[in-house]
């Protein structure tokens, strides 16, 4: 299935894109998606944290992705 991926801050720099459609396994969880991301882009390992949001809400690692979900990759925030 396909999902949309958006990245901000340093995540965007590591990935080299701000927005892209990616193919993932049907019923993939955030945890599985994260593992694949880390193995493909090891620089994510160096970050203090790595969170994900779907539908403008933080989601837990057992969240099951649906086709056309927009997954937002959230590196450590630093507003304020």
């Amino acid at each position, binding site marked *: 299935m396909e999902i949309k991926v958006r990245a901000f801050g340093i995540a965007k720099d590591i990935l080299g894109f701000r927005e892209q459609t990616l193919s993932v396994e049907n019923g993939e969880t955030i945890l599985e998606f994260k593992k694949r991301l880390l193995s493909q882009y090891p620089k994510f390992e160096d970050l203090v944290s790595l969170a994900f949001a779907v539908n403008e809400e933080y989601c837990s690692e057992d969240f099951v992705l649906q086709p056309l979900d927009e997954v937002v990759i959230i*590196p450590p925030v*630093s507003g304020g």
Partner: protein
Amino acid sequence: MTDSLMDIQVLETPLSVEKCTAFVQDPAAGGTVVFVGTVREWTKGKRVLRLEFEAYKPMAIREMTKIVETVKERWEALKICVHHRVGVLEIGEEAVIIAVATPHRKAAFEACEYVIDTLKQTVPIWKKEVFEDGEVWVAAHP
């Protein structure tokens, strides 16, 4: 997210302390506390040329609204204003302004500090410091 009791915005234009303070004025308020976060010139001994902020805007507004809702309940805040700037900021410019009005002043201090502390932990906004010899996403690495 703006109604008569809260004004939460992510803005590309300069912020105004006057505006944020005016918004929270309330005849029942006994104390208003305003936090202003500005761009510092030095960080760990290095001179900052400018800052660049980016936000995942709809979620940033949502997360800020959650913080504000908590504050309204926990500290009985009357009115709250949170304005966060994004884009390129020069030294001394305001990055964030938080104004909280409560019937009694102690609550205003606590609530305002809670907003900025929590905002820095949960709101999807990112800050890049630009130096003469490079740039760094703040807080990304240990």
